[in-house]
């Protein structure tokens, strides 16, 4: 290799390196600012199944009962049975294979942390984030009691929280459509004579009659 060619390659390599350095430094725009710890604390209130994110605190089933009756029962019912179409929170054990399953904390939800997290961030409906940490522990404890997960003497705290397991935790598994529904992939679906006999109507929406203001019969010209 000639000296001049070597030099040329060297120069090219330097150019590549410096261009890379520019791209690297321009990756950060400098927009925005660092978040203050108090700001992160104000918004980062989420809880995980392992108890990550829990505030220090405690609350008993006994303390939870009057709070629940005052703050929650008007929608969810005194026993978590749900009023009207508001969510049912208790009961429904063994109903998941039935027609019309009741998906409650005790029958369906996988983690206690979901209850605490949602009550903490979004409840009571229309007055979110108005409960103290201890009140949230107490309401969660009461809901666990309504679902027969703990007895009426139980006190829930940030320390014993991860030990409280819900019955249906093992009832969930990751999306498996690409294997269990593999037969829905088909390069050449049937185009002609795909059914042995003419199709017959087996169900009609009209019979159920739940559509808002169904219109009159149309006119055909």
């Amino acid at each position, binding site marked *: 290799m000639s000296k001049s060619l070597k030099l040329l390659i060297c120069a090219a390599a330097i150019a590549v390196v410096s261009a890379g350095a520019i791209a690297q430094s321009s*990756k*950060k*725009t400098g*927009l*925005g*600012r*660092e*978040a203050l710890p108090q*700001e*992160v604390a104000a*918004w*980062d209130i*989420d*809880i*995980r*199944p392992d108890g990550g994110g829990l505030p220090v605190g405690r609350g008993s089933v006994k303390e939870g009962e009057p709070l629940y009756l005052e703050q929650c029962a008007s929608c969810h019912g005194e026993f978590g049975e749900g009023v*009207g*179409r*508001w969510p049912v929170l208790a009961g429904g054990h063994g109903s998941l294979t039935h*027609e019309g399953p009741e*998906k409650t904390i005790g029958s*369906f*939800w*996988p983690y206690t942390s*979901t209850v605490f*997290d*949602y009550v903490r*961030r*979004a409840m009571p409906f229309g007055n*979110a984030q108005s409960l103290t940490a201890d009140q949230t522990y107490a309401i969660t404890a009461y809901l666990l009691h309504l679902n027969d997960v703990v007895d009426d003497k139980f006190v829930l705290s940030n320390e014993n929280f991860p030990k409280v397991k819900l019955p249906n935790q093992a*009832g*969930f*598994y*990751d*999306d498996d*459509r690409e294997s269990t*529904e593999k037969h829905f*992939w088909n*390069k050449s*679906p049937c185009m*002609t*004579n*795909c*059914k042995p006999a*003419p*199709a017959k*109507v*087996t*169900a*009609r*929406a*009209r019979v159920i009659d*739940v*559509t808002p203001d169904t*219109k009159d*019969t*149309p*006119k*055909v*010209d």
Partner: protein
Amino acid sequence: MSDKKALDRRGFLKAAGLAGAGVAASAAPAFAQAKPDPNITEVQDWARTLGEGVQAYPYGKPSEFEKHVVRRDVEWLTASRESSVNFTPLHELDSIITPSGLCFERHHSGIANVDPSKHRLMINGLVDKQMVFTMEDIKRFPGRYNKAYFLECAANSGMEWRGAQLNGCQFTHGMVHNVWYTGIPLKTLLDEAGVKTNGKWLLAEGADSSAMTRSIPIEKALKDCMVVWGMNGEALRPEQGYPLRLVVPGWEGNMWVKWLRRLEIGDQPWHHREETSKYTDLLADGRSRRFTWIMDAKSVVTNPSPQAPMKHKGPNVLNGIAWSGRGKITRVDVTLDGGRNWRTARLDGPSMEMSMARFYFDFDWDGRELMIQSRAMDETGYVQPTKDELRKVRGTNSIYHNNGIQTWLVRSNGETENVEIS
């Protein structure tokens, strides 16, 4: 073929007859039986007088004759309108972009009325630097782009699992819309904060009073998610998350967090309400699929449909939409005889990945009863299944992800009904 011959022959005879009449009575009108149309012979008000001037409507609205083209809800579905859903009037729309004011709504604690000057986006958790951005900061980021994506609620068609229930594609399929978004890649913002190597999941959170949260795997967050402030060329509508929302292409609508205020990076999913007690798919054996994010290929005939029945024999345009969370729609077939025989419909306009496609099928109707269906296919080779094929795998309790083939029964009087067939 024989139909076409007959038509040509009729056309020929008609022309010959007219020519004959012209010869026999040259001064008489050709159509003795026809009355002139007063819409033509009389001067209409709008052709005589002045209309309203510019600025009568600083923000324009549709014609008063289009008042019926609105989102509708089904009151018995939910406990309150603050935690409810309404539906896009698909049977009144065409092309592939949904007008902003007709995009269906789904809120968990009502429409947050956010002042953009007070709105902040925080990034925290497993990042090099926890950060806060204002709306002005976000709009200054390089790499702004525009892209159309469909958004479908995972519960779209969820009422139909146990059988035909609601009469109208607005109600059976109206929890879908397709919008051009303006924004930046989510990756750009995450790079600014610097995601740590153990950061595997992202939690997106809304600023409304439900503080909506969803866990998203970091691969998806870095691949094609967008943080957007614009829809269809203008600011997001309040009910669509003004001033900032997350776009998660091809994945269920619940993950597209509106009024987006926080992105947290973590090493495991959070298992919050919207990914455990809701948006998990309960199957017949009592177990449930979780993290069923992708919306599979789906289509529906929007015209005719129960709210837009057949009105005319002769030429008709069958009109519909298709979409897939796995990529582009490559083909849509339609049947008029309940799935015995299929014809490939005409895809009109661009077919973009994870965006709605429009299809048409031009046909002559002789007044015979029809069982109309459409069947979408995407670029992965996925074929939209029948409802019974879906039920065979999933049972009828799963609520979410019902992408089964829809049947409309058209009676000889034109009446069109949501049915299920053998």
